[in-house]
């Protein structure tokens, strides 16, 4: 087994091109479990933790561009005010030890349907930046996830960063699990309000082969808010509309029965989380206007 340790991003891309089978490792919180239990034996590791470019973040044309190697702990501490939905999700990841090491780049790399960073990234229409020696490309998050633990990254590519607008309005994240810490989501839901654009973004986790959005639910609730000019004159949303919003979110999922929960439970829980998240976010918006 080889251990490759690039010091710069350019070097990392060159190494990945030369060793396409090398397994990238960032925080190691997914990779090391595989290695420790001998479920994977890659010909080489490509350690990304020495690359300064990956652990920084900054503004890029109005968007936040966050390096793939920024840990959950740093996201919470440094970007919690600008990315509240992602920060809420980050707070539910594992334990302090896991949040000190685990990265969003690694979450994207693993592309688990249950990855907690994914629903907020979907809800706020994030973009994933991939790079190889051949160049850089940017993919909307919803095009990045292809199937359970499968993503659009090619063998010669690495994840450089994700790009997301600083929150345009209230955001929420909820997750169902057996405990408040250290749980893989039974299912999860993220919501982002964009008052300027009159838009509502959604993201569903752990209830379909990939993380997904609920476009019909988004259009429906945007219609309700638009019809009554509620972005201008915010008022409570009718209970029937909230119930319908929840139903449409649940309908966008394609859950299965597994050890963590049944498909029926997941649908039910999603409807409840969607309705509640919307009310929390909407009340915050009403309070702020």
């Amino acid at each position, binding site marked *: 087994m080889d251990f490759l340790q690039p010091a710069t991003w350019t070097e990392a891309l060159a190494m990945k091109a030369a060793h396409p089978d090398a397994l990238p490792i960032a925080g190691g*919180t997914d990779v*090391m479990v595989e290695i420790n239990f001998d479920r994977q034996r890659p010909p080489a590791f490509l350690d990304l933790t020495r690359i300064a470019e990956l652990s920084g973040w900054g503004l890029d044309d109005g968007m936040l561009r966050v390096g793939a190697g920024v840990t959950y702990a740093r996201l919470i501490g440094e970007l919690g005010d600008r990315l509240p939905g992602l920060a809420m999700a980050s707070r539910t990841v594992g*334990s302090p030890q896991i949040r*000190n*090491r685990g990265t969003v780049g690694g979450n994207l790399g693993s592309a688990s349907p249950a990855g907690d960073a994914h629903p907020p990234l979907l809800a706020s229409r994030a973009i994933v930046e991939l790079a190889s020696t051949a160049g850089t490309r940017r993919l909307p998050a919803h095009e990045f996830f292809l199937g359970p633990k499968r993503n659009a990254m090619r063998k010669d590519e690495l994840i450089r960063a994700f790009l997301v607008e600083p929150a345009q309005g209230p955001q929420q994240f909820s997750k169902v699990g057996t405990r408040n810490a250290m749980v893989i989501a039974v299912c999860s839901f993220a919501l982002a309000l964009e008052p300027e654009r009159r838009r509502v973004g959604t993201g569903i986790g752990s209830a379909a082969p990939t993380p997904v959005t609920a476009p019909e639910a988004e259009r429906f609730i945007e219609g309700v808010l638009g019809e009554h000019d509620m972005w201008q004159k915010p008022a409570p949303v009718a209970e029937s509309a909230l119930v319908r919003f929840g139903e449409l979110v649940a309908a966008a999922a394609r859950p299965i029965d597994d050890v963590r929960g049944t498909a029926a439970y997941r649908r039910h829980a999603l409807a409840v989380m969607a309705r509640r998240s919307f009310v929390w976010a909407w009340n915050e918006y009403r309070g702020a206007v």
Partner: protein
Amino acid sequence: MNGRPRVAEDVWEGTNLLGVLREHMDLPGSKNACEQGECGSCSVYLDGRLVCACLVLAGQAQGRDIRTVEGLASAGVLHPVQEAFLEAGAVQCGFCTPGLVVATHDLLTRTPQPTTMEIREALAGNICRCTGYAKIIDAVHLAASRMRP
């Protein structure tokens, strides 16, 4: 390693930091109970951040500042966190203790007077199968009161 440079020989590339500590550096304080980040008994500091040593690839630790439970006590004198764990009866079989001591040390460094809720959150990644946690939480409060400046 605990303040001084150490060299480990013949380390397989796929070994984790916990294996390096226990098998190559004669530092068996950090325990191996799960090797999957679930139990926290291997908690150590890596460049000042609390991590699970079982999830750090050996080569990732090279040249980094590692502090283990062995690095908390000085010259045969227990650290106040260790004293508090003993006095409060927070140690039964003791397997979880080193990890909990390091995690508590980390918590009290950042939050010198934590609430019970803050303690529960900070120690959520450390599993104990003996004590039922009540005495562990007592121990953290006791250590906090002792360490008050």
